[in-house]
């Protein structure tokens, strides 16, 4: 297909505004997926995405569309996630596109990630087509929302499309706009090959599969390839497009989106953001890559059985191919032995990574309490980054501890300013500004420590505002704070993986809540187990898990034997996410108790 008949675009929106549902309708209308194979949010193909009803991975798909003028177009669509923890997926997808559909829920209006994603798209020089979705809802305010969008983008209100992805209203005009309002790709088909790797996954047979956008030249299966950053060379095994399954085509032309099965078995040779070129006629300059991701939250991931350490390493490496926002390095813990300190974009990201490692690689893991990265200034003037409370140096050599602060923006109906204010100031937030989006909705700006934000701030905001508030944040800088390490002792033994860093003023309060929470989640054991919180060797709080008295005194006769045995087998095998420390068993929830201190 010649370049003028290609359109590459992505779907951007705040979470749940209907991107994936709109993608369904586009796939249907273009006959990409036959009606009988259609399911809701068909591009959310990962088991976890379907269970949670949320897009986690960006996914690409090619469609053929015959426009009203009779011309046939090739449309490459990338559906992106709306959750803020997966914004790195969005930014990478943008580099493979010339345009974006900015989808906004007609009832909810503009929300935090609507703006955040819009700014990412503008930065990447994309042409934007605004779309108001869910106009079928009784609570829809299509005119108002269209007006807001028009003002935001500096377009006429009638240029804002109005659709219902669910009912299939207005889908044809979306395709028309894609063809007429978005530009075709601009690359040079005759220049040496340059293809940007925007995503990848590992396939046991085909090795690393790179998802590419061909910018210049042509990518053909017969020609050996060079990865410009790592210098690795390889003969591709397969070249093709997503329909949305992988479909071999043998070549990809300039401007097209597809995949290359590189055959590379070592995952370190292929990075997202690298440029593929021909090994025979290499391009002189690589494409601009991606800004490396900056993790917000760190936690240790440890195998429940120590023998799984190497499997965990290889699983992390493979998963990283498909989750470029994941970073990790080896770490040891006295309590948990060998594992990895991993960096995530947020707690949801962390949860998804743990789940994917367990499901896709058959591992059983324990995640330690999440922490932010602190800067410790030592008496000798050195600055050390500490991403794990256990690594905090001896207080005697610490001059100062600095913690990351964020600038946060809360989008909320004006009615909820009070509760939002209260929630954020309680968490050491500092108020900055209020801006009115319209007469009803405001954006409140604060500064607050990241450590206070990661701990369920988002959920708390939602419940304080009946689900209306949304949140966006950016890193602001490191600031000194009166911070101390709090150790947690289980059965009189400090468990390094449970240690946390807290503000001195909150130590007593947090310690008491934490031990109480842990008491709830640590199952009763054969002996009573004291749980203590200590700061600088002084116990600040204590709770006791009482001993297990009874573990079923049920009767057992003939008919029960098989059932009983299976129950016991399950009880035995079902020790998922439980770690044995001497005679005490600590479940995953105990490590995450620190996230739920505000619950009662």
């Amino acid at each position, binding site marked *: 297909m010649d370049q003028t008949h290609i359109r590459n675009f992505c779907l951007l929106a705040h979470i749940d505004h209907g991107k994936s549902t709109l993608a369904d309708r586009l796939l249907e209308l273009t006959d990409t997926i036959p009606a009988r194979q259609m399911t809701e949010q068909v591009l959310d193909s990962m088991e976890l995405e379907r269970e949670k009803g949320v897009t986690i991975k960006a996914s690409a798909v090619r469609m053929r569309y015959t426009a009203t003028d009779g011309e046939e177009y090739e449309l490459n669509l990338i559906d992106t996630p709306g959750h803020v923890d997966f914004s790195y997926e969005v930014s990478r997808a943008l580099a493979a596109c010339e345009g974006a559909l900015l989808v906004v829920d007609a009832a909810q209006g503009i929300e935090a990630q609507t703006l955040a994603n819009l700014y990412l798209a503008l930065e990447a020089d994309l042409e934007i087509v605004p779309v108001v979705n869910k106009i079928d809802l009784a609570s829809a305010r299509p005119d108002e929302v269209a007006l807001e969008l028009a003002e935001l983008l500096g377009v006429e209100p009638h240029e804002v499309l109005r659709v219902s992805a669910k009912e299939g209203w207005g889908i044809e005009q979306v395709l028309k706009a894609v063809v007429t309002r978005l530009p075709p790709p601009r690359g040079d088909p005759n220049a040496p090959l340059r293809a940007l790797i925007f995503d990848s996954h590992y396939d046991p047979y085909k090795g690393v599969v790179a998802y590419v956008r061909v910018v210049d030249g042509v990518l053909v299966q017969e020609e050996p390839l060079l990865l410009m950053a790592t210098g690795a060379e390889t003969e591709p095994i397969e070249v093709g497009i997503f329909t949305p399954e992988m479909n071999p085509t043998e070549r990809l032309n300039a401007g097209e989106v597809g995949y290359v099965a590189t055959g590379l078995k070592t995952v370190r040779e292929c990075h997202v953001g690298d440029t593929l070129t021909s090994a025979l006629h290499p391009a002189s300059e690589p494409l601009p890559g991606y800004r490396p991701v900056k993790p917000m939250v760190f936690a240790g991931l440890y195998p429940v059985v120590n023998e799984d350490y190497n499997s965990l390493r290889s699983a992390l490496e493979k998963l990283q191919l498909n989750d470029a926002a994941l970073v990790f390095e080896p770490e040891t813990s006295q309590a948990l032995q060998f594992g990895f300190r991993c960096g995530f974009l947020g707690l949801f990201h962390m949860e998804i990574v743990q789940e994917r490692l367990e499901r896709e690689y058959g591992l059983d893991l324990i995640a330690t309490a999440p922490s932010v990265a602190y800067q410790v200034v030592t008496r000798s003037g050195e600055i050390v980054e500490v991403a794990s409370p256990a690594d905090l140096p001896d207080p005697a050599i610490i001059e100062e501890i600095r913690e990351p602060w964020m600038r946060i923006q809360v989008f909320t109906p004006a009615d909820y300013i009070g509760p939002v204010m209260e929630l954020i100031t309680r968490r050491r937030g500092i108020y900055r500004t209020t801006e009115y989006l319209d007469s009803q909705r405001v954006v409140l700006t604060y500064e607050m420590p990241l450590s206070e934000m990661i701990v369920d701030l988002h959920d708390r905001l939602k419940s304080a505002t009946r689900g209306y508030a949304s949140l966006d944040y950016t890193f602001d800088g490191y600031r000194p704070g009166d911070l101390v390490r709090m150790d947690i002792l289980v059965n009189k033994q400090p468990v390094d993986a449970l240690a946390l860093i807290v503000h001195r003023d909150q130590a007593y309060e947090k310690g008491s809540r934490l031990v109480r929470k842990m008491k709830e989640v640590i199952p009763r054991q054969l002996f009573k187990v004291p749980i203590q919180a200590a700061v600088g060797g002084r116990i600040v709080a204590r709770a006791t898990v009482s001993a297990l*008295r009874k573990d079923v*005194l049920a009767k057992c006769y003939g008919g029960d034997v098989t059932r009983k045995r299976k129950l016991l*087998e399950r009880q035995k095998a079902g020790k998922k996410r439980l770690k044995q420390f001497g005679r005490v068993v600590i479940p995953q929830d105990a490590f995450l108790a620190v996230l739920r201190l505000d619950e009662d």
Partner: protein
Amino acid sequence: MTIHKPAALYMHIPFCRSRCAYCDFNTYAGLEELIPAYVTAVCREIEVAGERWGRLTVPTIYFGGGTPSLLPLDLVRELFQVARSRFYVSDDAEITLEANPGTVTVGYLRGLRSLGVNRLSLGVQSAHDDELRLLGRIHTWAEAVEAVEWAREAGFANLNLDLIFGLPAQTLARWHQTLEAALRLSPEHLSLYCLSVEEGTPLERRIASGALPAADEDLAAEMYELAEEMLAEAGYFHYEISNWAKANPKSQIPNYKPQKWWPEPETRSLKHETLSEEVSPYVCRHNLTYWRNEPWLGVGAGAHSWLGGRRWANVRHPREYIAACGTSCQLVPHQEVEEIDRRKEMGETMMLGLRLAEGVRDTRFQARFGRGLEQVFGAELAELQDLGLLEWNGRVTRLTARGRLVGNYVFAHFV
């Protein structure tokens, strides 16, 4: 002379007047009109089993349910006739029938006795009528007492009473009263069950909805310990986790004083080899078959069997069961057939045998599996002994008092 394999015989009678609130057994209310056809089907299954397994020697027969006392006497007779025609039912066979107060008369019980039933198991459950109502039982305590008197009158010298503890909102004092009331009836045998709230039962729904409080687990443990003390005092032998039998006053073992459980090692006056039967003639021999993991044949809807190295269960619904016995001339369609390999059988032998005060004996284990306990479960035994949950002296292993309360924790080490 051919040697006939021994197997206990269980007959399942899946009919009840109405469904109790906690019941998740395979039983049905309002299907009594199926009873005659059902009995015919069971007879048919026994005939087929007789062909399949040959003339088994049957040392015990157990009519369980459901409510077997809903069977008219002539149908009980029919079942006996078929069983006796196909199997060698021992002369001294223990023949138990489960009965519910409110479903029997003295005449009926006399009839059972004359047919050969020599052990009666009465589901009395509680001495408090409000608790009986909460459980959805169809009878009162007074009716239970009456049933016991009738059973004695009819000549039953081996009587079991079932009691339940750990009910929502039940106090220790109320449980104490139930035990005392039951002891006044001098049953030869007592089965005490801790109520377990099963999924899908009305009781579960009421607890889930908050209409009833959940039972207190720790309190249930105390009720159990109270029962252990009271029954030991009253001369009962605690021979299985949930079962007590009146000890033989002229016990073959000199100096035997009933204890909470099998005497602890230092004070042991029993030989290691002593079997439950030697301490009390009233232990339930049929149920001992289960706990010793010995073979049995179960007939009737949903009945389980353990014979010839496999376990299986029959179809559950009586209608389906009747249909199946009517059409297939060979075998009742079995569901959930499971081949039990050595390792599984060893695990089951531990899981079941440790329920007994007599424990699991190394000599028996050796004879059965060709390998000793130490060799197969050395690590598990050492760990559990270390935790104070098991007693293990190289010859026999059994639960300690603490171990009895956390049986599942212990058993899980072996399966």
